[in-house]
């Protein structure tokens, strides 16, 4: 009954640098069922994009990649570039964040869509490819596609370009689409349009989706399951309901509590103090411990494994996951803003200070 299209197991990515080895991805694993959508969330530097690039075999040669990535049973790591090229686009397609750099500025968008079609369909005539390109542009919501097909990327707006990228991604009916921050560079009204186009692309191709984003709102609306990444690892994973309603990793809880929300009355936000650790010479123990309000001695010694919290499909990497049952972010995290004492002193001196109002005669 399991019909997984993509299986990532114990993926590790390291970049040797002059200062030492950067462990960008540490033992990431996930499984994507056919047609399913998985959201990967995390802040800058959490390793979410590197994971995607490793899956696609797009990392630079200096990167050391270990582990296993299986697409429909075929191991992708170590596959020749030619074999990978056969799979890219037709098996697994990728949508990048910045459509200006992922499209080639010197070719028309029609040419670039046709190119992907012809690459994977040797028998196809260029006229048929062009017709299909027009059709695809229409599908992703580009108005008057028969005219737009001859446009160059610079003639299109950011939102239009991202639609073209989606059209290219769906051109060869892939089984998996990996979208890496597909809407981050765009305004919200355009983001809504692009997410709709992405849903259309999925509906048309039946592709499974890996949606990488830092925006928890986007994940809430567009994915079935979520994996939260921190310091190169998945620290919590489960259904969207598990993650959003019963988080069992302090980081997830803090992240949710730090989001200002449109649908709630003013409520104190819960910042997570400090910054994510450097992935160079990561100390032992839980990488979130220095920022964690639940930190104990154990946390500094051993890194907690990802294990069931609540039920079998909801995993969390925290020694004290059980303590989070039924707690809100505000109860666990400090909601500090300004230093209260300094603020009181500052307010006092402000009251005493002579008026700073400029009283010079304007003449």
């Amino acid at each position: 009954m399991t019909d997984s299209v993509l299986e990532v197991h114990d993926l590790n990515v390291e970049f040797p640098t002059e200062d030492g080895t950067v462990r960008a991805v540490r033992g990431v694993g996930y499984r994507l069922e056919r047609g399913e959508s998985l959201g990967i969330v995390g802040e800058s530097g959490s390793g979410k994009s590197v994971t995607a690039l490793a899956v696609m075999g797009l990392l630079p040669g200096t990167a050391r990649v270990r582990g296993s990535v299986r697409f429909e049973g075929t191991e992708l790591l170590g596959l020749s570039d030619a074999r990978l090229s056969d799979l890219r686009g037709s098996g697994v397609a990728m949508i990048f964040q910045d459509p200006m750099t992922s499209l080639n500025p010197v070719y028309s968008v029609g040419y670039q869509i046709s190119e992907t079609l012809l690459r994977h369909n040797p028998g196809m005539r260029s006229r048929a490819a062009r017709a299909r390109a027009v059709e695809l542009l229409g599908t992703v919501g580009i108005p008057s596609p028969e005219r737009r097909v001859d446009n160059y990327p610079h003639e299109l707006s950011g939102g239009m370009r991202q639609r073209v990228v989606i059209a290219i991604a769906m051109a060869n009916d892939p089984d998996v689409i990996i979208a890496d921050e597909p809407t981050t560079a765009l305004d919200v009204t355009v983001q809504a349009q692009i997410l709709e186009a992405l849903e259309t692309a999925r509906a048309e191709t039946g592709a499974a989706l890996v949606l990488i984003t830092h925006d928890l709102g986007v994940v809430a609306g567009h994915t079935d399951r979520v994996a939260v990444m921190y310091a190169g690892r998945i620290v919590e994973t489960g259904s969207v309901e598990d993650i959003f309603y019963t988080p069992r990793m302090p980081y997830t809880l803090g992240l949710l509590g730090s989001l200002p929300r449109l649908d709630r009355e003013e409520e104190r936000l819960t910042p997570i103090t400090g910054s994510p650790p450097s992935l160079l010479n990561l100390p032992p123990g839980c990488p979130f411990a220095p920022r964690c309000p639940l930190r104990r001695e154990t946390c500094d010694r051993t890194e907690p494994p990802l294990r069931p919290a609540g039920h079998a499909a909801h995993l969390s990497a925290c020694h004290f996951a059980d303590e989070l049952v039924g707690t809100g972010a505000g109860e666990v995290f400090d909601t500090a803003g300004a230093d209260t004492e300094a603020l009181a002193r500052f307010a006092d001196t402000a009251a005493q200070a002579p008026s700073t109002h400029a009283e010079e005669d304007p003449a």
Partner: protein
Amino acid sequence: MSAPTEAAASLPPLPGHGGRGEPVLQVRDLVKHFPVMSRGVVRRRVGDVHAVCGVSFDLYENETLGLVGESGSGKTTVSRTILNLETATSGRVRYRGHELTELSRRRMRPLRRELQIVFQDPYASLDPRISVHDIVAEPLRIHGRYGPEAAGEVRELLRLVGLNPEHANRFAHEFSGGQRQRIGIARALALRPKVVVLDEPVSALDVSIQAGVLNLLMDLQGELGLSFLFVAHDLSVMRHVARRVAVMYLGRLVEVAPAATLFARPAHPYTQALVSAIPLPDPRKERARRRIVVQGDVPSPVRPPSGCRFRTRCPKFAHQLTDAERTACVEQVPELADRGGGHPVACHYAESVALL
């Protein structure tokens, strides 16, 4: 000049905008155009970017007014023009009896103590070559207030914004993005301003860091009674920090209302589209929501549409109005006025809708 007599009077506040108390900063019919030059050896002015077109609002004492809009809406130009960092093409900006748009740089300088700004990019807005102490002390020096107690004052400012005063000798690059933004806030507060313009102060930060800066700003505003003009593109942030919100589209204000009203019952189709486009981090609510999706992209501000500037993307214009009704949208610029909903809206066919 009749400046001294005129200086005594502030302008009548804008009716219906929902402000409380005394307006401190009044903006009327502000216009800012940037010239578009032709290419080639002889560069001629071939047109204008209509960045800000007739924006009016009042910023009241002790309030946070949010100015929200997408990229290219002119919100940053508004914030720079009202501080006289850009020269207004026309319009008035009144601060405590002074007409800021008419002041020279020299005459503006004493007022800069009271009108401060925090910039978006905490990397570009801090001098990398001087210590954090010097960054925060710089406004004191410029305004001749760097006395014997200044070092203590700077330490106190750093403490106030949640930084360790012992780090005052470090340089900006040694701090994280969130900490840098706190340095920028400390610098803005050094002269004890009355009005602070915050231009996208948290948009470069990760959410977990952003929350701390937002909490800080809210504490400062509440405790010190400052007036904040908070410019941002993120409606969720606005909902959190602002008491009143003004929505901008392509150089014009389209709706001004108390935050609670604006988000619960937006009346302008653009505000409605914005509110419904913001994803909620709540799977059940997010999936059950009604969406108002607009078409296309923001038109060029060089040649903005006639009449209502939003009509080219407006779902109401496209699907609900009759041809006769559309004539008004094409021919008449909708005024920002109360149309029965209790707050000003710039739409001929404004209608409140509950979206959340």
